[in-house]
C-alpha cells in the first residue's frame, strides 16, 4: 500500500529556532514530492521536488529530496510566529497517479 509518513506529528519551538520536518514515502510510480503549508484554511503550495539532491529554497524555507532513501526534509530557519501551521507532504504516484498526502506536521512557534 502506498504511504507517506511525516514526522514529527507536532512540534513546538521558539522564535528564532531552526526546525526540520521529515517526510518519508513508499509510493509506487513516484513522480514528484510536494510540500504545502496549511494555516486556518486552504493549503498553499511551497515546493515541488523531482530530482534527488537539488535543494529548493524560498526565503527561510528550503527542501531537499533523497530518492534513494525515499525521504524529503523541509527546513525552516529563524522561525517566526507566522510560520505556525500544519505542513503537508504529498507524493504524486500510486496506481492512479494522484497526490498521496501524509498526515501533516503541526508546527507551533512561540514568541
Amino acid at each position, binding site marked *: 500500500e502506498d504511504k507517506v509518513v511525516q514526522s514529527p506529528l507536532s512540534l513546538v519551538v521558539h522564535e528564532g529556532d531552526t526546525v526540520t520536518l521529515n517526510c518519508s514515502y513508499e509510493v509506487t510510480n513516484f513522480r514528484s514530492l510536494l510540500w504545502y503549508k496549511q494555516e486556518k484554511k486552504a493549503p498553499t503550495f511551497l515546493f515541488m521536488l523531482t530530482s534527488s539532491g537539488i535543494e529548493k529554497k524560498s526565503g527561510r524555507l528550503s527542501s531537499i529530496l533523497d530518492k534513494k532513501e525515499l525521504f524529503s526534509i523541509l527546513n525552516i530557519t529563524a522561525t517566526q510566529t507566522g510560520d505556525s501551521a500544519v505542513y*503537508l507532504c*504529498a507524493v504524486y504516484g500510486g496506481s492512479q*497517479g494522484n497526490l498521496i*498526502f501524509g498526515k501533516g506536521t503541526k508546527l507551533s512557534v512561540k514568541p
Partner: protein
Amino acid sequence: DVKVTQSSRYLVKRTGEKVFLECVQDMDHENMFWYRQDPGLGLRLIYFSYDVKMKEKGDIPEGYSVSREKKERFSLILESASTNQTSMYLCASSLLGAQSYEQYFGPGTRLTVT
C-alpha cells in the same frame, strides 16, 4: 493568481439530507479534485475529474457522487448525508499532466451532519 472558491465555508445539515458542495476555479484548469480532511487521517481523495463530464473514483468514494458539467465547476454530492461525513471538504484544481503541476486548493467547507 489562481482562485479556487467553494460555495460555503460552514454548513450544517441533518442526517439523510442531500448535500451539494460547489467548487469553482477561474484558471481554466483541466483537473479538479475533492478531498476530505480529518484529524489524524490527513487529506483523502474522494473523486477527481480530468475533463468535463468525466469523473474518476479516488480512495474513499463511497457515499459521494460528483458532477462536472462545465470546465470551471466541480460539484460534490452527498446523496443522503450521514454523521460520519462530518468533515472538512477541500476542492483543488491543477493543469492537465497532473503529476507535473501543483494543485491549488480552495478555502474548504466545514460540514457538520447532525
